[in-house]
């Protein structure tokens, strides 16, 4: 994938570039808002990673400008620690996702991957499939092979989210945000316990374990064959 990183701090930028490159992406970097705006408006990128605080213009202005110019590339906005209102502001400006510094790189990578392949709204599927696991979003039913699996509503939401991102890492915070709408980090392992219940219903007694834990990053559903 071709990515653009707009980040003025050299050390952070170098770290991001190296790590994203290692993950197999082609990365351009802009060190100022002006350069970032020129690149983002001029070249086709799969994902734009944009720092919010930049030498002018700032991140929000860039998002607004490129959206007004018709650039559809998904934007992941990075911000300094703490701002409660910033997420809403960023999303309203036209960003697609939001990450608070300091972040774990695995979190950034997972979100970049999720953004890159986010299907356009009109193509949202009504049925999802991974291996022999089928999920029907309309009937809200889940089957594995021929067996029907009964899930609690939250477990269904978690599974649907994992399956939409099949093959990609889904982090704990991504699940907290999308399934529960929690935009903060509870200190209790609620994600772990819910996923482990889901896993016991989906994978227990099966030869192929579909829901996998990615150490230090999150979860991933994939058919390992």
């Amino acid at each position, binding site marked *: 994938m071709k990515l653009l990183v707009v980040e003025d701090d050299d050390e952070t930028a170098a770290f991001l570039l190296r790590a994203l490159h290692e993950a197999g992406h082609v990365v351009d970097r802009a060190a100022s808002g002006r350069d970032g705006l020129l690149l983002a408006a001029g070249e086709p990128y799969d994902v734009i990673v944009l720092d919010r605080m930049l030498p002018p213009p700032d991140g929000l202005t860039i998002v607004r400008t490129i959206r007004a110019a018709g650039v559809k590339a998904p934007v992941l906005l990075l911000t300094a*620690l*703490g*701002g*409660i209102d910033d997420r809403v502001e960023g999303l309203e400006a036209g960003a697609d996702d939001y990450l608070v510094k300091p972040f774990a790189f695995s979190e950034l990578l997972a979100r970049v991957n999720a953004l890159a392949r986010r299907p356009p709204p009109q193509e949202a599927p009504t049925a999802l499939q991974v291996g022999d696991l089928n999920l029907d979003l309309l009937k809200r039913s889940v089957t594995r092979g021929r067996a029907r699996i009964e899930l609690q509503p939250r477990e269904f939401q978690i599974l649907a989210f994992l399956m939409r991102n099949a093959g990609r890492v889904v982090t704990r915070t991504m699940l907290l945000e999308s399934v529960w709408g929690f935009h*903060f980090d509870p*200190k*209790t*392992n609620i994600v772990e316990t819910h996923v482990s219940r889901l896993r016991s219903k989906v994978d227990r007694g099966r030869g192929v374990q579909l829901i996998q834990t990615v150490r230090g990053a999150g979860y991933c559903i994939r058919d390992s064959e």
Partner: protein
Amino acid sequence: MRLFRSDSVRLATLYTTVFSLAVIVLGAVALLAARSALKHQLDARIQAEALALAQEYRTEGIKGVLDAVEERDRTPGALDYGLLGEDGRPLAGRLSGVSRPGWATLRIPGHSDELRILSITMPGGRRLIVGESLQQVSVLDGVLVGAFGFAFLGVLVLGVASGFALSREVQRRFSEMSGAAQAIIDGDLGRRIPLRGAGDDLDALGATFNRMLDRISALMDSLRQVSNDIAHDLRTPLTRLKQRLEASLSAGGAEAQTMAIEAALADLGAILDTFAALLRIAQIEAGTRRAGFRSVDLSALVTTVAEAFGPSAEEGRRTLSAEPAASAVVDGDAELLTQALVNMVENALRHTPPGSHIRVGAGRDERGAFLIVRDDGPGAPADELPRLFDRFYRLERSRSTPGSGLGLALVAAVARLHDARAELRDAEPGLEVRIIFAQERPRTLAIPNAGVMRDAGYSR
């Protein structure tokens, strides 16, 4: 002179001048009115006398008139008279030499005052003159002018004296206020404007200023508290982190080093969490989120949170039950209220032994809508209950459990933002944390107050 620049002196001077002018005008009007009334009276008496003598002439003839005039001249206090022949020669009385008939005011040699006279022509060309000295009028003038002169002086003295007294009093109180302000500027932040207890305007103003100063000093205290807290409570984990990293330098083997680094990262994560929580509390306390208040269904909140934490509670062998009552809708920030409730639940999960039962509820009673989390754990000593909402405050027996000591502080901050009250109660046994939303929160309170702490490290 400083005194004459003050507003109160200027006002007193103005009032004194206006009152003095009023006294002068009043005096002049009274004088003119009294004079005119007296003159009318005089004229009426003169005319009556003249008519009476004319009547005498008609009935008794000239002889009768002569007798009457002579007799009256001898009577003290009577008017002055004169009877002249047709050739102008005086026949009787003291008045003479007046030729024109009608009213006249004239000065007669031998009289100290002016004379008011009426001269009429009688049949046969004789002329009768009746007159009266205007002495009464000048006496009245003297009395009235004297009286009003005294009144004028009185008003002047009273006005100036009370003006001075008033301005000195007002000036004294202004200088008290200004002295208190100067003392605060010089660093005595505890100083307040002294009040009279008289309940007057200046007292009301002073009380308002004192309330403002209290608010400012509360904010200053909380700011100072935060910096102290950060200094004290982050030093420990930072020191530990430093030791870990130093130890990892000398650790033998790659595996031991990896473990040390992982432990250091975990420490760092906890420190960053503490920072984030502190900043979040500071931001909430700045009150800027009020602009985005919407209707929030507390019961739905309870259901979501209880459902999210149920499995984790069960894993720790605790039970979690939700008791959402209907009709608990408040005006607020859904995200912050969710986080507050989550913190209340996590507090209960963390500080109760396995086997405990935790109840999460929402409802409405006579005090208003509320959120409640109640456990049947060991609770907290009564004297420490109120302090549990303080930043970094932890019970002695909880020092070893994980947590930053900021969870309930955030609950309290969220409650304050919503004009709600956060309460801790002994649930006998256990602990009950409750947020009570004031009934019918007036919407005018939703104006965000000044973001005093907004710049405390928060960048946008």
